[in-house]
């Protein structure tokens, strides 16, 4: 087990940059972090009918996520156990079965090996097909239409894993009576940076907005005065940040759920559904649904920008971003379309916000080629010592401002606990003790 205690010191708000570059640490992350955590697989709306499938990734492992005939969803490694061929090479589609192109072993929708060519002649009927199906994802959980999976039999239940973060997740996932659906098609792109830069920013970093995204507002707003006001607002609006179980979220305290940032159509629709939204999650939560969120380790979303994504690691220095736009399932076309276009224009590889995030992360990674650069500790001390418990009665560890790095420290704490090979029980234990050190607001 790698000793990472020197590398991240959440208590002091210090990060050693080698955690973003060391190939050994990366391989350990695949084993200790990604193979043990709950990872996002797919959303209900991606699998409309029996046989519907999408290829997803759990870190670097390709998995097929398939709608079963009984309506349930199963997932298995997209790797044939004979010689390891990728069983299905389409990103998505509808299938009756999956046949490996190399030698023709065939699998049913559940990933069971159902046919082996020349089973009698070649295998003398001695192959036990039940033993040679692709590796199943042993645990798949459906949280309100969001499917998460984990390889780890020991991992806590998804609810326990999520903890108080459920308050934030449901603010998005459970906002409407009819639920949400995804705009068809994932947007995928590659950024040469470590996955933790992205995951951490979406967990903990409202602070970069005024500096990184000034020009995005210029694109959205023509009138200089409005622009100035918006900028001013960014610096003065009160906000909160949540941290727990490695997850993190930050958001402003807004007076109303509109304007939505998507446009008049959605605003009108929200106005009409205000009562429904308040009823489901409570008004406080509804108003808080305007921030950044990361479910540890690599599933993130922005409530008000209607974008959710997975940061798939691709080596220590690269990620693949898979992003989707979510809309109220019940919404009429003009609303769906208004949300769709506004998200594309703000958060996508060509989005006026997103392009500038990528620039920061790639440059950070580039600089870390340097020997001295890799020895310079990073400062994650914002709000250190000012953590709070349950501010405004919100569940869990909630700081009384959104401009803090509490959630970043929480994320690296969870990362360090897992990397140290601690059992889930030990981690829970430690977290309980850590909670107690924090006073209630």
């Amino acid at each position, binding site marked *: 087990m790698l000793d990472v205690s020197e590398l991240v010191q959440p208590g002091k708000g210090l990060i050693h940059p080698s955690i973003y570059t060391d190939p050994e640490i990366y391989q350990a992350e695949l084993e200790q972090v990604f193979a043990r955590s709950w990872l996002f697989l797919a959303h209900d709306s991606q699998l409309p009918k029996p046989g519907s499938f999408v290829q997803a990734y759990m870190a670097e492992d390709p998995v097929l996520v398939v709608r079963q005939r009984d309506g349930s969803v199963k997932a298995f490694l997209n790797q044939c156990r004979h010689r390891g061929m990728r069983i299905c*090479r*389409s*990103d*998505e*589609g509808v299938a009756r079965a999956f046949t490996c192109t190399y030698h023709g072993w065939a699998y049913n929708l559940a990933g069971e090996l159902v046919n082996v060519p020349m089973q009698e002649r070649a295998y003398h009927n001695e192959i036990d097909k039940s033993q040679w199906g692709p590796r199943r994802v042993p645990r798949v959980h459906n949280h309100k239409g969001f499917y998460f999976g984990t390889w780890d039999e020991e991992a806590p239940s998804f609810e326990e894993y999520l903890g108080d973060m459920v308050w934030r997740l449901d603010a998005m996932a459970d906002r409407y009576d009819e639920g949400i659906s995804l*705009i*068809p*098609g*994932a*947007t*995928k*792109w*590659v*950024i*040469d940076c470590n996955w933790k830069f992205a995951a951490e920013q979406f967990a903990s970093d409202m602070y970069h907005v005024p500096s*990184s995204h*000034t*020009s*995005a507002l*210029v*694109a*959205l707003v*023509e009138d200089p005065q409005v622009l100035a006001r918006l900028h001013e607002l960014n610096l003065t609006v009160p906000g909160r940040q949540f941290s727990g179980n490695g997850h993190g979220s930050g958001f402003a305290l807004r007076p109303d759920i509109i304007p939505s940032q998507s446009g008049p159509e959605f605003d009108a629709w929200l106005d009409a559904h205000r009562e429904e939204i308040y009823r489901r999650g409570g008004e406080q939560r509804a108003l808080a649904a305007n921030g950044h969120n990361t479910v540890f380790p690599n599933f993130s979303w922005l409530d008000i920008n209607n974008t959710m994504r997975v940061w798939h690691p691709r080596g220590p220095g690269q990620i*693949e971003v898979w992003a*989707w*736009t979510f809309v109220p399932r019940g919404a009429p*076309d003009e609303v*769906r*379309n208004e949300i*769709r*276009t506004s998200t*594309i*224009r703000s958060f*996508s*590889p*060509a989005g*006026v916000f*997103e*392009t*500038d995030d*990528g*620039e*920061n*992360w*790639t*440059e950070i990674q*580039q600089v870390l080629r340097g020997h001295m650069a890799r020895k310079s500790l990073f400062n994650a001390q914002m709000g250190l010592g000012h953590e709070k418990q349950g501010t405004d009665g919100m569940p869990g560890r909630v700081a009384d401002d959104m401009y803090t790095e509490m959630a970043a420290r929480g994320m690296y704490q969870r990362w360090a606990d897992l990397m140290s090979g601690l059992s889930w029980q030990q981690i829970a234990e430690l977290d309980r003790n850590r909670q107690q050190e924090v006073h209630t607001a």
Partner: protein
Amino acid sequence: MTTPTPDTPTPDTRRPVDPTVRHEIEQFLYREAELLDDQRFQDWLELFSDDVHYWLPTRVTRTVRERSLEVAGPDGAAFFDDDKTFLRGRVRRLSSGQSWSEEPPSRTRRLITNVRPVELADGTFEVRANFHVLRSRAERHHDTFFGERTDLLRRIPREPGFQVARRKIVLDTTTLLAPSISIFL
């Protein structure tokens, strides 16, 4: 249909163009590319009609049988889905001196090839062209974008003689092998 192009009028209403018109259309497209490579975004903007639709849908890998579903439809995910107003906003941003992904600016080169114009019944032109856009930025960062553009061009009575009324861009990649598309295609 099995090709990643927008629905188009029936063949008989599509007429080939003569060398002169082809020459004018190519020079127009070259000029457009030049304005972008020279970062003259304001001038570039004027080449587009006020009702322009500037669209770059996403793409997935599917079997030959399902190939018609390869390119996302109008209600699907896209990299660009802009009207003139938002194009203006993008240009404002690029001129702000704070659009970090383009400040310092990228160096780009647009190779526009295989220009295939046809004249439609209403006197507009549908122009399919292949593109390979090379982008270099910062010290050694390099990206490349390639695919096909289908433009709808309208004649205008003033320089440079045409306007882009519709642009559909289809990349030949599914996962974009670049950190961003902070440029125009």
